[in-house]
């Protein structure tokens, strides 16, 4: 409001506002965060929509993601080519989904993608093993991990096909009230 900013045109900002759960101020803040990641790479003028990507190494070193066990998956899921390199749009998308305002279904959809390590559209036993290993940093033995995976599938697999579909996942998330507040990255 009345800010003298020349990074975006008015229309650009409006579009960002309509496409994310952020206010104008938050968008600007996120932009500066993004710009700070690679000051020499990201121009301070986005009015001409430059095609800039910040490499994953820099994205993953953000304090918000640095210690997150799933940082690589997050970056991959939100980046365009699945390689973790992010444009500003991807970056805003990511934080929009992780914001407080995003609805449960949207969050569940992306959480599902994050946990779906092999991108096959299902969370299978292998994906689960990956997840558990990441979560526990290898503190559990192999048998324990496979037992956990078995139990998880047992609990959440509604159609008994031995893997979790998005549907199963959403049902399960529905029973976990904390999901909404925990699948959230503050910026």
């Amino acid at each position, binding site marked *: 409001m009345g800010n003298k900013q020349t990074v975006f045109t008015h229309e650009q900002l409006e579009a960002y506002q309509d*496409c994310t759960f952020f206010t104008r*101020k938050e968008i600007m803040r996120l932009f500066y965060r993004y710009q700070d990641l690679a000051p020499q790479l990201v121009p301070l003028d986005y009015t001409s929509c430059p095609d800039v990507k910040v490499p994953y190494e820099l994205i993953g070193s953000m304090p918000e993601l640095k210690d997150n066990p799933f940082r690589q998956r997050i970056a991959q899921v939100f980046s365009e080519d699945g390689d973790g390199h992010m444009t500003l749009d991807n970056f805003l998308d990511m934080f929009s989904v992780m914001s407080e305002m995003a609805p449960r279904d949207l969050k569940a959809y992306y959480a599902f993608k994050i946990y779906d390590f092999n991108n096959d559209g299902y969370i299978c036993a292998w994906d689960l093993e990956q997840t558990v290993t990441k979560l526990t940093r290898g503190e559990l033995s192999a048998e324990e991990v496979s037992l956990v995976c078995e139990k998880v599938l047992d609990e959440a697999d509604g159609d008994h096909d031995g893997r979790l579909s998005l549907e199963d996942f959403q049902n399960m998330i529905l029973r976990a009230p904390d999901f909404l507040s*925990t699948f959230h990255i503050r910026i």
Partner: protein
Amino acid sequence: MSAYYSNKGYEEDPDYPDYSGSRNRTWEHLKTQDYPDSPDAQNNSAYPRTRSNPYSADYRTSPDYPGSLAEPDYPGSRSNPGQSGTRSNPFAAGSRRSSDYPTSLAEPDYVGSWSKPYHPGSSSEPDYSESQQNSDFAGSRSSGNYAGFRTNPDYLDSLGEADYPGAQGNSNHSGFRAHSNHPGSRRNPEYAGSRINPYIDTLGEPDYPGAENQPISPNFFAEPDYPNAEDHQNSPTFWGNPDYPVAEDGHDYGSSETSEITREVLSRTSSIRPSFRHKGDGPLGIRGRENEDYPESIAMKTLEMANPYGNSVPGAPGDGYVNPAYVGESSPRPVYGNPPLSGCDWHKSPQGQKLIASLIPMTSRDRIKAIRSQPRTMEEKRNLKKMVDKEKSKQSRRMLELNCCAQCLNSISRVYRRSKTSLSELLNSVSLWQKTLKVIGGKFGTSVLSYFNFLKWILKFNIFSFIVTFSFIIIPQFTVAEKNTLQFTGLEFFTGAGYFGNTVMYYGFYTNSTIRHRNGGASYNMQLAYLFTIGACLIVCFFSLLFSMARYFRNNFINPHIYSRGIAKLIFCWDFTVTHETAVKLKQKNLSTEIRENLSEILQENVKLTLNQQLIRFSAHLAAWVVSTGVAVACCVAVYYLAENNSEFLKNHRDPGAVLLLPFLVSCINLAVPRLYSMFRLVERYEMPRHEVYTLLIRNIFLKISIIGILCYYWLNVVAQAGEECWETLIGQEIYRLLLMDFVFSLADSFLGEFLRRLIGMQFMTSLGLQEFDIARNVLELIYAQTLVWIGTFFCPLLPFIQMITLFIMFYVKNISLMMNFQPPSKAWRASQMMTFFIFLLFFPSFTGVLCTLAITIWRLKPSADCGPFRGLPFFIHSIYGWIDTLSKRPSYLWVVWIYRNLIGSVHFFFILTLIVEGKDKMFLIEKLTKLQDAEKRANTSSFTLERRDVEQPGPLHVGEHDAACDLRFRRSVQEETPKA
């Protein structure tokens, strides 16, 4: 409020008249065509209504989509002209929808397979037995219809549907076709996976037949084929059509019927919800409903109001009674069933077109919500928005020339929206402690963060109350303030008496006169201002409590039965807010321990206790309850006697510090007894830790509230009746001292107690380790203080301000103490569920108790004769009576009098209000129950698949039943193997 919303949605939309028109035409069309033809009118009527007609009608009215494309193909290919005619229409509509859609797609196949399910009735069909066997899948055979149905721009939910696989030319196409050719394959229970299936296709996994794109259709459109189809005649009510033959069934939908559907549908596929949403969400659906007599939908809306996302879906109230859980979420689930087409020209594809078409009739607010909730990349969302805006402006130019009223409304809504965003931006810009909260969340996770959020929330209450009281009571009083002659010594900060007694802080200082500066200027009646301001504060608090409670319930109400012992939740609810390195490591370690515990618990499940053990356990519980209640009662008695004797004592000794004795005792009780209660855990054993937490909470809140209760009793019955001079001020001072003492104790506890505990834990008894932040106890302290503040606002209008300051300080103190002395919680703590409970506690014993106390004060007590704004009146409320009397003498204010007499003064009004509120409560509960049943059933989907069949298929269809079941199982196993192959 809610009604306003829905109406607004309706009025603002310039498209509405058009659609309703098309709907009407639809009916005509339907009647002329279908009814006479169909031997089984029931089935057929349900069919076309829900599906085909709206679309065809709609499309025909739409000039954008030339309707010539596919229609001629249809009639010829049907074996049953009457029925197939109706069925095919929708498809035609769908195909006509966009010109780049290959019309040839699947129609011939469809037709053949469709007609089967409808034949059982006529029984002349040679395929009869087969159709029996496959009757379950009748609906899925009509999936083509369904897709067509969703192409209708009326449908919000058509947003992201990928139903027209062929249209994009992706792999779904062939699958889809194959699917419709082989009805049997639709038996496949794999429907559940259907919604992600599209992704698979894009991800390049060809194994899955695209047919599963239509999992949803069976739920709805297969229904009429069943003998007991009446159960599903709810559908007409969705459309609000009165001339539906079986409409009477639709009217009495209640939880039982809903659950019936739910069960039924569930058993077929687990992607039930999308289908329900489909129905309910269509803007057309809701408008239809709102025009008809559906009070339920309005009732439901209120609940939604509390939900930030709830308002965005225009149709939400409608599906509310089907599956309330999803009402709140603005993004229709099926959206996610969309294959995210790569490339940014996806919007040119049929789905994109569909999506755009569905977005156009929405209000701008809903549209933006819908766009935001699309799981697509920014580029796609932006293009989508551009397209929609373009279409919209095209349409509006065409239409709004006739309808300038709608245009006007539209622009008003735009202005309203814009001002609202800027307002929320402004509010966000003052968001307090953003960084601190982030650090706390990063180090301690969501659960501890919830305490601080609760604190912040209460602080907001107090800021609001302060602003209101300050501007409407305190400032006017300042303008007429007399000089304070009392000496200020400094001790007053603790006792609240003396000097402060003669300031704006207390009731007694306020004037009873009408303030009037300069002759002829506006006058200000202090009595009324005092009552109205306090009343307004409480009313606003009441509603914000109610709405937050509703919101929390909506989001977090989860049946503890389902909830217990989930290892999946441990895995998938990793706290993404935790960002601090050591915290992450600690959390990972804790998680491993918890998983291990959970595993061992599962492994050695159900260790049956012997009778003896059970008896011991039971008696331990009993003893603990008796002791805790006894302690609470003893504390109350002690407080009461001390209070009584103290006043005697104070009369004789004029030592100003002596007044601190009572608050000191109360604070000591509040400090010590909860710790005593916590020690009961040494004796009591609970199967679930959650039970322990809840028991502890209940005991603590009982203690705190009963102490406050006994104090209130003492104040209202002893202090107020004692005939002392200015008893209101005395009560105000008492409350001030209680609050202050509580604050001092909290400070001391944080700085000394917690610090000492850390020293002991770190230095002397390392086995103890660092302590964990006790969220429950801390939250209860906040609730206790807030209760006092609410009571005290009447006697001491400055109290919210004092509480504001103490909360502000407490935030920092707790923050520092947390960072220094505590470690992150080791257990996953159900923060959101607990928050729901806390807010409920704040509402139920606390706030309602305050209301009762104040009501007694205002209606039943005599104000002191020589001080305060109400001096000389027999009761506080008499100021209002007097005001009404004056007003009734002035004709221009008669409306106020009327409102007072008929609404506020009338018992009937309150009676009606109670009924409404109760009705809403019941609706809410029914919704929740339905949802729970739903969820439970979803858990047992597979077992129901077979069970349902027994219930559902009496009559001729029984023949193939067992074959079907076997068939089902067989196919499932086949299906399981195919992807692996």
